[in-house]
């Protein structure tokens, strides 16, 4: 257990003042872009379609600098960190934006940046930042998989690079992607390979997710990848996967916090205005206390996320501690967002059960994001493995 007063909140430094200012600016810009319910309406309309997102919106987000937030300036990005990206992800969650920002810019972008192919970075990262290229990460091979490093897809050496054999599933953001980063077992260990959309196309199929977006599945029987498209060789791939995974967990948590905050606001507004038995239903103590409990959950997510983000800024953070922090916040936000959106349905009564009511969209996005990359149960167990030594001693 760490100190109750963490180092992060030490006497105001110029740094922290600058950070606060930057975060405020980001918050402003994000809330301007996501104001109203235009994006919720978009998300509703795009359900069940493919690719299920909007190129124009994607370009706008690129112009706002969101897609390049985590990309260093030398690769055409803004060069900021997770704390800034979380502000954007929270706004995305609030407004239910259907675009796969976290999957593309955090998870796939992350493995690209943490890989060891500087030439490829210089080629792909600027396009990702500019919104002209959407990558997705294809790592999972069976729905039962929970470990990114248990890879069975094979990368067979050829004179010009590798050929990939195997299948990948549940590629979130894969339906919108211009290309996939595929993990595969090469002779030297796990490698990551860039497969542009055209090369992947023959083996691709799609499946609708609970929130109406589509995930992709990929079957590869000899997809050719030139040597220049190796995103990360065995020396770098595992660490890149793990770091990008942890950061994606934290960003998905920020999305979940954003959406559950908004779902709670919508519900509180309903409680204030819906009248039954001659008074607003929000004046009934049972519903008041239930709402208070949901608010407590939401506050817990918020402050826990702040603490995790502060810790992620530490340059000396060990991979194991980073994993524990990421699992801690993903467990909390997955659990809380499901509870909040589920109760939001209940408090809306029959209206909440109707598809036309927005809280249902919030519930389904929560279902999708809470399960993505592992839910509360899985991450509590990962946290126990990584942080609670007693339990394995």
């Amino acid at each position: 257990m760490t100190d109750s007063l963490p180092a992060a909140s030490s006497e105001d430094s110029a740094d922290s003042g600058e950070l606060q200012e930057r975060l405020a600016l980001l918050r402003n810009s994000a809330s301007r872009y996501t104001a109203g319910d235009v994006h919720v309406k978009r998300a509703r309309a795009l359900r069940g379609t493919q690719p299920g997102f909007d190129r124009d919106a994607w370009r706008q987000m690129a112009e706002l600098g969101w897609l390049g937030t985590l990309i260093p300036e030398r690769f055409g990005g803004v060069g900021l960190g997770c704390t800034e990206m979380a502000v954007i992800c929270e706004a995305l969650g609030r407004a239910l934006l259907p675009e796969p920002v976290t999957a593309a810019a955090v998870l796939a972008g992350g493995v690209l940046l943490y890989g060891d192919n500087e030439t490829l970075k210089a080629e792909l990262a600027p396009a990702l930042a500019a919104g002209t290229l959407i990558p997705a990460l294809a790592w999972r091979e069976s729905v039962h998989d929970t470990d990114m490093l248990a890879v069975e897809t094979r990368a067979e050496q050829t004179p010009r690079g590798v050929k990939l054999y195997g299948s990948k599933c549940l590629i979130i953001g894969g339906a919108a992607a211009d290309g996939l980063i595929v993990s595969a077992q090469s002779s030297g260990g796990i490698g990551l390979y860039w497969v542009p959309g055209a090369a992947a196309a023959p083996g691709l199929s799609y499946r609708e997710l609970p929130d109406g977006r589509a995930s992709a599945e990929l079957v590869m029987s000899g997809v050719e990848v030139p040597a220049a498209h190796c995103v990360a060789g065995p020396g770098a791939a595992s660490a890149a996967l793990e770091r990008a995974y942890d950061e994606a967990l934290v960003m998905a948590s920020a999305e979940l916090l954003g959406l559950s905050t908004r779902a709670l606001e919508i519900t509180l507004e309903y409680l204030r205005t819906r009248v039954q038995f001659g008074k607003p239903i929000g004046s009934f103590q049972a519903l008041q206390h239930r709402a208070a409990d949901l608010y407590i959950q939401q506050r817990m997510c918020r402050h826990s996320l702040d603490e995790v983000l502060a810790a992620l800024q530490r340059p000396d953070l060990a991979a194991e501690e980073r994993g524990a922090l990421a699992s801690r916040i993903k467990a909390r936000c997955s659990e809380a967002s499901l509870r909040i959106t589920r109760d939001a349905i209940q408090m809306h009564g029959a209206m909440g059960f109707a598809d036309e009511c927005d809280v249902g969209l919030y519930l389904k996005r929560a279902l999708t994001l809470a399960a993505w990359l592992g839910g509360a149960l899985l991450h509590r167990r990962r946290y126990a493995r990584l942080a609670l030594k007693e339990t394995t001693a």
Partner: protein
Amino acid sequence: MHDWNNMNDDDFRKEVRRFIEQNYPQDLRFLPHRPRFSVIKPWLMLLVEKGWAAPHWPVQYGGMGLSPRKLLIYMDEQGRWGVARQFLGEAGVVQLGPMLIRFGSEEQRARLLPKILRYETIWCQGYSEPNAGSDLASLSTEALLDGDEFAINGRKIWTSSALDSTHMFLIVRTDKTGKKQQGITFLLLDLATPGVTVRGIKNIAGTTDYCEVTLDNARTARSNMVGELNQGWTVSRNLLGFERINTGSPRRSEFAFKRLEALARERGLFKDAGFVDRYAQLALDLADLKAVYVHFADLLTRGEPLGPDLSVLQLLSSETNQRITEFMLEVSGELGLTVAPGETQNERVDALTPFLVMRAVTIGAGTSEIHRNIISRHVLKLPG
């Protein structure tokens, strides 16, 4: 004609079971949601032919005239086999028929019951309104007596299966002066009447079972009033025991638990001690829910009245159901993201649809909040 009630319980059970197992369509067993009428119609027509369409109606009106005890066996066997449509058929057969038998005129019974019994008319129930849900008595759809007809204006909502129905029975306001439970009248309405618009409302589970029914000067003959003018609240509230116990049946929870078991086998969860702890807890919750159900079923069987404590069963049943489906979703993990709705093939279990469908059970048959109010006020006698 059979006297079912004189039959030995076990023999009766066997006969019902045999008929269901031989005739109920295999692909309609244990549906996660209520099927459209067209889908279930062949089965219902088989029941009509067999004379089993209205097990709870008196023999003189074409029913089986079952005693509560036999009726529970009948429902039990349907539940065990996963027969759709809440065990007893449509709202016309389940609810309206018995109401007409108790409160209707001789003319109404003669005119309406035979058609209900043969599914020539399909009925839906028009109670809830946009501003009258939990507080049903504050309904504002109005009916004005104009000569020999009522002219109805207003909006009904959450009307189950209206898209499949030909008629609706509904409660409307005919007097605004007294207490709100007074001044309500029970009417029958042909949905083909000019001024009636039915709009399907898709629910979060993706099916369109609920509807909104708009009534714009829709007219119905005075002869379609059931009971006296302004006495409709009494007519609509007088549910018989087996109708009230229906939503408290543990069958849906049992169904969900069986899906959980299948999911656990598929994912190898029985090797996971943490899973087994919680699985056992749910198994015990289900076992004890059944014990509570048996208590109330026994009361019915002995002809004793059901009191407000029936809300105990309603809450246990709906909340156990939700706990099971929530847990199923939780342990399905990312698997839950990829299984198609209703999928049960290839050993893949859809955890999402049951979870979504069961969101309604703590809302539909009286919200959980209303049932807790009933227990605290009318059973525990806590002060208002």
